[in-house]
Every structure is written in structure tokens, then in C-alpha cells.
């Protein structure tokens, strides 16, 4: 790739980065400009990709067929595929007050296909998780309390050691099951819960949920930092050091 082009591309990236981070100071036109550039590019790219990578290959080319080459006939057109066009276009009638009912036809077809898959999909997704939630609560071995190091053991012995439920694992499982049940009890909205014990248990569930959300929030913050660090690497090392100072352009 032309090095001047690479440098210009990187400089544009730096300008976009600075422009978008300028919102940290305050809302400004520089930020707005780059925000609109970003959205415009993303939307434009998506439209082209939708046509060239999906509709053309998956619908139009099959619809019209091809003449073939070197004296061989190409695939015939599947002209019935043209019926998909009005069905798809019906979706846009959602913008018309008078004819909005027509948009329900494609939505209904999509929902029907989607619903048909849901029983199997639900089970594939949640079945193994439900199965994994059933855990042994009592230890099979009381001493030692923790699983011993199996390094150096024969595979058969290591396997036998690993199959035991040690006290530490049993405690972990008890915490897991209590958390699961407490959080589930928090979502009992279908009827009024009068029992003080269950209400207390669901309050515990709320606190446990908060702990979980806190952990997720911590991960989110770390990810945002990682993104900032990468942007700083791009600006200082990739652009400034490797291109501007090293005069690679």
C-alpha cells in the first residue's frame, strides 16, 4: 500500500479519535461532525454490504439466472423468487397510517418462522445450564477439605481424586444453589408473597443480584479502559512514533 495513503488514513483516524474524545470537555461541533461521519460511513457501508453480500448473491442472481460461458448454459432463473420482493416491500407500509396493516404480513411470516424454532432453541440454550445447576451439596470426602494436587499421580488415581466432592467444593455448591434459589424467588411477581421467610429470601436474592451486577460493571469498566489504552497506543505509538517521528510517510 502507498505509504502516503497509509499515513493519511492513520492521520484521519487520529483526527476522528481526538474529535470524538473532545466530547469529554463539552458537547461541541467538532464532536458532532465526527459522530455524523461515523454514522454515515457505517450506514453507507452496511447498505452496500447488504446488497453485494446478501441480496445480490442470495436472491437477485438466483432470480435472473445466468447466460453461461464457453458454450455451456448457466443456471436457469428461479423466477418465483420475484414474489419475495412485494412481501419484503410490504414491510415499508409501516410508515403509512392507511396501509400499515400490510406490514404485518412479512412480520407475521418472520415471527412464525422464529416461533417454530424457539422450543428447540430454548432447550439447546438453557437445558445444559439447568442440568449444570443440579450440584452435590454434601461432600463425599471430609478430609482433606480441599482437592489435593494431582500432579504426578497416575491418570486413574487422578481421575478418582477428581471425582470426589471435597468440603470446599460442597461449600461453593451450597453458595451457588442458595444464590440461584434466592434470585429466582426475587422474581416471583405472579402472586403476592406473604411468607416472611420467602420475602427475606428474595431480599437476599436482590443483594446477591447487586453483587453480580457489580462484578459485571467491573468488567465493563475494565473493557472501556482497554479501549482507551488501545486508542492511546494508536495515537502515540502507531501514528506519532512509527509514522510521524520515524518519518515513514
Amino acid at each position, binding site marked *: 500500500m502507498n505509504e502516503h495513503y497509509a499515513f493519511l488514513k492513520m492521520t484521519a483516524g487520529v483526527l476522528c479519535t481526538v474529535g470524538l474524545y473532545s466530547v*469529554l470537555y463539552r458537547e461541541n461541533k467538532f464532536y458532532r461532525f465526527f459522530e455524523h461521519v461515523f454514522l454515515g460511513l457505517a450506514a453507507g457501508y452496511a447498505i452496500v454490504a447488504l446488497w453485494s453480500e446478501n441480496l445480490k448473491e442470495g436472491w437477485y442472481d438466483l432470480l435472473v439466472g445466468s447466460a453461461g460461458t464457453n458454450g455451456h448454459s448457466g443456471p436457469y432463473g428461479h423466477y418465483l423468487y420475484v414474489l419475495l420482493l412485494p412481501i419484503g416491500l410490504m414491510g415499508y407500509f409501516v410508515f403509512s397510517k392507511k396501509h400499515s396493516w400490510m406490514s404485518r404480513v412479512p412480520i407475521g411470516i418472520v415471527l412464525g418462522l422464529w416461533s417454530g424454532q424457539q422450543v428447540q432453541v430454548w432447550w*439447546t440454550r438453557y437445558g445444559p445450564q439447568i442440568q449444570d445447576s443440579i450440584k452435590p451439596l454434601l461432600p463425599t470426602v471430609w478430609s482433606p477439605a480441599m482437592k489435593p494436587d494431582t500432579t504426578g499421580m497416575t491418570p486413574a488415581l*487422578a481421575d478418582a481424586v477428581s471425582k470426589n466432592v471435597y468440603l470446599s467444593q460442597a461449600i461453593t455448591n451450597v453458595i451457588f444453589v442458595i444464590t440461584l434459589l434466592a434470585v429466582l424467588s426475587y422474581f416471583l411477581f405472579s402472586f403476592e408473597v406473604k411468607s416472611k421467610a420467602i420475602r427475606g429470601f428474595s431480599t437476599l436474592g436482590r443483594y446477591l443480584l447487586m453483587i453480580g451486577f457489580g462484578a459485571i460493571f467491573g468488567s465493563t469498566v475494565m473493557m472501556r479502559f*482497554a479501549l482507551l489504552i*488501545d*486508542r492511546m497506543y494508536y495515537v502515540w505509538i502507531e501514528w506519532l512514533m512509527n509514522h510521524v517521528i520515524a518519518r515513514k510517510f
Partner: protein
Amino acid sequence: MDTPQDPTPISAEEVQLLEVKRIEKQAHRTRMILFGLLILASSLPLFLTLNVPNKPTQATVDLYSTIMAVPDGSTILLQTDWTTSTRGESGGEFEGLMRVLMRKNCKVALYSMSDAQAPKVAMDEIVLTLNPERKLKGEREYKAWDDYISLGFFPNAEGETASMAANLRSAWNGKKYINDSGEPEDVFQSPVLSKVQSITSVPLVVIITATSSFNVLIERLSGKVPIVALVTGVMGPETNVYYSSKQIQGLATGMKGVYDLETMMEDGINSPGPNGKVGFQWENHPPVKGFPGETNYGRGKLYFPTLHIDMALLILAVIFGNVGMFMAKKRGNR
């Protein structure tokens, strides 16, 4: 002679407004100082050579073992649902994964179910970052069509993945790849996909994602083919349940996941290095070789120390903020 007049008295509301403005200005200044410190903390360590000790987690050990167990030269499917917006984490994951696959001469069919730009971003990484790195070491560059192929973007993730599970050849029927001379060619003519008949004939599906697109993949493909996931820190807790219930065979999460992967690429698992010593021990695990001396470390090792410094700054800010608030409250009460 004019007599001096008293200044116009300020109403209580105006006093309150002025006070609000003063507090807002002060908060803005404090925020600017914090942002400045954060930018410094995220920039300066990048110029230094810092090392943070690392011990990979069980999930990434399983991820690395699963990838290394793929037969050399086979074709894997790579769902690449990330763009430059999450390059800090996903870029490191992609580079680490591709370095391993390239050393194993694996062929890669990549596609996205989440973002139209994602396949292009992934291919740019191969062309602009990984290939020059290989060329510099005198290794064979990875070629589009022969070694990897982009199937593009599929906007209907649920329908497409269900079709892939039912009949892979039918799902990608009509897919074309534009070759160097501008001619469209059927993707199944490519050496990457020519031997792939169904989803079960693929030894591994890998997903690199910054969104919850793995849900659809797992719903439709789990149990049919081994799956490993490399996700961002945000998606980590949500994906972890799939790893715990063994619906996916391995998982790398965020920056730590990248560094774990790089560590095992260098040291292997229970595998003696060139000096005869085992660099990374994992209890009761068969040896899995690494690639000592190769370009293994990348964004993970580079960014991880900086991330620690940023986190330290965050913790300090939380402590000082709370102490400040406590003292202000105490002053107010008095």
C-alpha cells in the same frame, strides 16, 4: 451631582443559581483533571517495558488446548463479530488466534452475523498486520482464497445459523468470492471450503465477539460442533455460563484472556521449553506445545500493565471521592 445608588439587590433565586453555576464549574474542572490523569495513565506506560506476572485461567487453558487439538491444515469457521471500536480486546484476541492457526496451516472461513464491516476489519488485520509479520520472518504469507476466505456479512443471524446447522452447503449456496482478476467464483471451489460438506465436518467454530451474538450461535450449533469463544470484558460474565455448562469448550475474556492466550502461545501447557523447563504448569493436563521464541506476545502483554495502572487510578479516585464526600457532609452537618 449624582448620588451613588445601591447596587440592585440579588434575589435568593439568583444567589442559588450562581451557587449552582459555581459548583458546576468546579465539578467540570475536577472532571477535566481526572480525564487528564486517565489519559496520562493510559499513555505513559505504553512507552515503558513493564511486565505483569500472569497465570492463565481454566477457561483459557481449555480454549488453547481445543485450538491446538484441531488437526493441522483443517478448515475452521470463524465468526468475527468485532470492529475497530473494540480493537483493544478483540483485536488482540484475533491476532493471537490467527497466529496459532497460521502456524498450524489451518484454513479459515470467516463471516460476521453482527456487523457489516467486521469481515473487512478481520481481513485487514491479516493483510496489514499478520502477513507483514510473517514476511519479515521469511514465512509464507496467508493468501485469500487459498488459506482464508470471507463469506461476508449475514444480517439474519438466527435464520442463517439455523441453515448452517441444517445444511451448510445449502446455506452458502450461491456465495461468490471476487478473485484477483475481478471474476466471481463459487466459495465452495476454494481450497478452504472444498472439503467441507456439513457443519459436523468442521473441527471447530470460533467466535470473536463484542456483542451477545454468541447466544444465537450456541442456540443453533451447540452440541453439533465444538465451539470456543473469545469475547470482550463486558460479555465475559454472560458467556461464562455457557463455559460452565460445557456448551462451549473454551473461553477467553477481555484483556486477561488475550494475555492468557499469549502466555500459553509462548510457554505451552506442561510443555518443556528450549531450556528443558516447563514454563507454565497446569495440574493434571496433558502437555500442549507452545511456540517459544516466535512472535507470541502482542496487545495482551503490552496493554495489561497499563490496565493495572488505570485500575489503580480508578480505585484511588473512588477512595478520594468518598473521603471528600464524607468530609464535606461532616462540614455541612457541623
